[in-house]
């Protein structure tokens, strides 16, 4: 799924999600792949203020977070000992101006005790959860599991 190409000429294709249901979501993504070039495309100056994930995507990431992340980063993403907070000022002050591709790369080194053990889609969903917890707006389109697309989205200053 990570091989979806990025093209600035393509139409922005929305992956429709009828329900907050992992299986439906997976089918929808597979379905979108059948359309060959059906990856979401963002404007070159896309930012996390643009609604780049869906609430449903963030919600379904909660179970992944609880299982794979919470033991170090805390149940509420607040951080723990050596594991930095994933929400709030310490998070946004560091990540503002960087892009989601960089965040995606860091996530792929996690969980610390079993790095790379999640699917690309699960990492993308976790980014959606992190954005949601940091009060970035949700939109109508899921954040794709494509590092190149993610790298095109800049992390904007935290909402006040």
């Amino acid at each position, binding site marked *: 799924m990570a091989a979806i190409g990025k093209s600035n000429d393509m139409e922005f294709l929305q992956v429709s999600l009828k329900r907050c249901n992992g299986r439906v979501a997976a089918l929808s993504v597979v379905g979108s792949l059948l359309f060959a070039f059906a990856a979401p495309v963002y404007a070159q100056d896309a930012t996390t203020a643009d609604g780049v994930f869906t609430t449903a995507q963030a919600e379904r990431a909660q179970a992944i977070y609880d299982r794979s992340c919470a033991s170090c980063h805390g149940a509420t993403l607040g951080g723990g000992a050596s594991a930095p907070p994933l929400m709030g000022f*310490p998070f946004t002050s560091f990540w503002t101006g960087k892009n989601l591709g960089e965040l995606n790369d860091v996530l792929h080194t996690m969980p610390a005790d079993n790095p790379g053990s999640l699917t690309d889609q699960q990492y993308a969903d976790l980014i959606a959860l992190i954005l949601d917890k940091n009060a970035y707006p949700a939109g109508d389109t899921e954040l794709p599991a494509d590092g190149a697309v993610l790298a095109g989205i800049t992390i904007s200053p935290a909402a006040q």
Partner: protein
Amino acid sequence: MIKQLSGALLAAIVGAGALALPSVAQAQSRLDNYTPVTDEMLQDPAASDWLMWRRNYQMWGYSPLDQINADNVGDLQMAWAWTMEAGRQESTPLVHDGVMFLMASCNFTQALDAATGDLLWEYRREVVEHPAALACGNRNAVLYEDKLIMATHDAFLVALDAKTGQVAWEHQVGDWQVGHHYTGGPLIADGKIIAGLSGCYHINSGGCWISAHDVASGEELWRTYTIARPDEPGGDTWGDVPLESRYGGSAWNTGAYDPETNTLYYGVAVPIPWGSEQRGTGDGDVLYTNSTLAIDADTGEIKWYFQYMRNEQWDLDHPFARMIVETEVSPNADEVEWIAPDLTAGETRKVITGIPGKTGIVWTLDAETGDFLWARSTVEQNVVTGVDAEARTAIINDEVRSSIGEQVYVCPYLLGGINWQAPAYNPNTNAIYAPVNNLCMNFTLNQVQPTIGAHHGSARSTPVIPESANGNVGSFTAVNVATGETMWEFDQRAGFPGSVLTTGGNLVFVTDDNRRLRAFNAETGDVLWEQILNTRAGGFPTTYEVDGRQYIAVPAGTGVSYATATPEIRVPSGGNMLYVFALPQD
């Protein structure tokens, strides 16, 4: 909160089948014969017992048992296993009179027949919604008189009746809602309970403390703060920062104790936030962070301190087990980077040694005075460039200091050359066996807004394997305590997140990040036995004897891990399991 095998349940088990009867009957008799733990036992434990975290006050992780030894360890086989509570695995199985006390994550505690694993009683503490993710990594309890005494994730001291698991008393010490918790367990010294508070890496005013408590009630007897108060000696090392804005100094591992001098040796962790620019403490030393405190167990008075790293900023904590050893002091300058200029080599002294901090440096100090004797590195590090013996501190490399937003390359990684996984000391070889790790990091301080109860969130870091390691993260190293020389070293790709057990059988046991539990020849470093487990083992291996049979207990499951740097080594998360090994019975 207590569930005990009731008479009705016992009847049900017996009724269910005759096979159940012998084990239950035997289990009951184990508790029937349980004897109170005395001060004399703590000072000179029976070979069959493991009564406290590292077995003795000197923090050796050593047992004189030798039924399992270098000649027969190849015959080891599993005696029994036991699924443990999910969560952080940092447990130390304690054993007395054939009863094992197994405190797992969030202080969930079970008493088991140490020969079979049969359950005797269990205690489940109500789990609070603690703000600190690590609060439930509870490392050890301690046995004393007829009690099992623990320090909890919600910052209480709790005494359980060792025979029943019933709560005898509990006493609140800290405030979990601002982050306080205990992960390092209590110690019994001078007839008191001594406990080092943690959770001061969350924002709570004035930092952590070490306190003494009445063994019969938990009532507090004295308290020594780990952060100097403004009007006390060292108070000016925090500049003008008022007490309520001084944070950090968790004392998150159990201290060592010397009954001969009635002195406690506790380690103190880092200041919070990590960067001096974030703290507003300028060039101040921020006492007593990253120090050893020698404390009078009677009064709590600080007899001396030695601050390994002043004004530290990389989360390179120095809170780990201090070892007390009587040894000849003859550091070999070919292998020991830093030696006290006025050292008279060849003298026998009582020293505080081991690896107190994440730098992986072995520091050896005089136990009575805290004077610097010698120090050497065990892994790649670029933070300490020298030792100022007179000032009693390391000389820090200014190149790795940074301001907010500036990335620096620092060795070791903030998980440490070593973390809370504990080395062991064997008096027969006079060696420390250290599970150390070669990792560096790209480290960037970020802006902070300290909020009471919240994590400090000082920095981001990514691990990097240093070139000098040739791809090998793990380095299991034997260091001679007299000379500082490396006796042997076992390097490999997988890191060593496991603690060490060494025995009178000329053996050293350690686990790695790739599920390997190995027994080494303590003298030569030869691998004599290997067992592949279900996962790495974050718990502390212990050994004990029941009915003439020696057992090795290894709590598997993740505590610390260096796997981020070796992603090709895949080990599943979870799977907490206690393995117990023994030699075959005739």
